[in-house]
């Protein structure tokens, strides 16, 4: 701990400075202050400052790479020393305040170090005392209950429906259109029973659900009528443009 200056034999008066034994400038300052063997409240700050500066100066002489915080502290202490040395004047209050700050910081570090020592001296669990090596776990985990909620049920339903719909192969909607062949067969079977002129659309099949199916059936029946008229099986007549198309059995003069 007091290893700030470790004397070596060669050369006899030289000191090898080991600042790395200290955790920062405050650590060194506290160690120097303790060297005065008096209550921290009564240490000589001026003596302390001079000791610190001497140590840092010595360290620099042996071309040690000095960390910035050591030098910052040195600079601040140099300033403090200059203020402490001038006779009572304008700067005295400032110096007194700075002295108090330094003494306060040293006292706090001292207290914390004492606290650490106090803790260290306590019978410590795992070092001096041992707790039970293995605690008995008397807890029993009951996983028989289910965690369910309606929200989860809804999400599951929707994802099931989505997957179900997605799994089916795409089939275009089937549309059943009345073919010309069907129209021919129907017209042929019906036209004989109706000797007089009748509207062609009465020969459409009974069940036509959509207008598409109706228009398709109408076209097919017209084509069937035209085909039968060509062979003379029926005769077709239309009184006016867009008027109803009339049909009757062929072969006789109307």
């Amino acid at each position, binding site marked *: 701990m007091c290893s700030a200056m470790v004397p070596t034999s060669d050369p006899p008066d030289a000191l090898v400075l080991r600042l790395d034994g200290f955790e920062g400038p405050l650590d060194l300052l506290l160690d120097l202050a303790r060297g005065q063997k008096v209550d921290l409240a009564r240490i000589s700050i001026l003596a302390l400052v001079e000791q610190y500066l001497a140590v840092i100066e010595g360290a620099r002489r042996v071309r040690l790479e000095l960390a910035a915080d050591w030098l910052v502290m040195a600079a601040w202490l140099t300033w403090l020393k200059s203020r402490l040395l001038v006779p009572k004047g304008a700067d005295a209050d400032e110096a007194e305040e700075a002295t108090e700050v330094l003494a306060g910081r040293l006292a706090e570090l001292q207290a914390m170090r004492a606290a650490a020592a106090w803790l260290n001296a306590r019978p410590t669990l795992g070092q001096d005392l*041992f*707790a*039970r*090596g*293995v605690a*008995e776990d*008397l*807890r*029993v*985990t*009951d*996983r028989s*209950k*289910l*965690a*369910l*909620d*309606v929200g*989860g*049920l*809804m999400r*599951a*339903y*929707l*994802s*099931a*429906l*989505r*997957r*179900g*719909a*997605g*799994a*089916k192969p*795409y*089939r275009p*909607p089937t549309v059943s259109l009345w073919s010309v062949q069907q129209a021919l067969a129907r017209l042929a079977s019906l036209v004989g029973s109706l000797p007089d002129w009748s509207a062609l659309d009465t020969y459409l099949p009974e069940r036509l659900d959509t207008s598409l199916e109706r228009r398709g059936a109408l076209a097919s029946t017209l084509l069937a009528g035209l085909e039968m008229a060509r062979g003379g099986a029926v005769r077709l007549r239309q009184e006016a443009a867009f008027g109803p198309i009339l049909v009757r059995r062929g072969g006789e003069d109307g």
Partner: protein
Amino acid sequence: MDEDAVRLAEALVFASGGPVTARQLQQLLPDGVEAEAVIAALRARYSGRGVELADVAGGVQFRTAEDLAPRLRKVVQVPRRLPRAAMETLAIVAYHQPVTRPEIEEIRGAALAQTTLDALLEAGLIAPKGRKEVPGRPTLWATTPAFLLQFGLRDLRDLPKREDLLVEPPAAGEM
């Protein structure tokens, strides 16, 4: 019996992470003190107490007295969640009941594993409800009263309406 040896054995068995063998104890005892005898003395001392010395896996260990264990046992409930497939199947049964297994598979677009069905049956959430009068007479499935309890429903009508659930009805080919 050497009181110091019993104290040491007591502390050792207490602090050890596992059962303590007579050999382990012997290493700490002064010459002439028999570990077996020390353990016997320790066992006698704890006999009838809240904690007893038990023989386990080649050593000794302190253990809660059997008559006290039930009073100290704390049951911690960790509810489990149903797996996804089971939850989906349950939802389909809830909305389409009574429903056959092929119908469930058709709606989910996936085969229904027997384990999934078993899980729902075991949890008492679904139950068979007759058979469908079609070739093969497949079993019809429906939800149980336990299903309502589990989800905090008074009635199946408490479930959100299908129409409310499906903002866009699943048109064929669209979804």
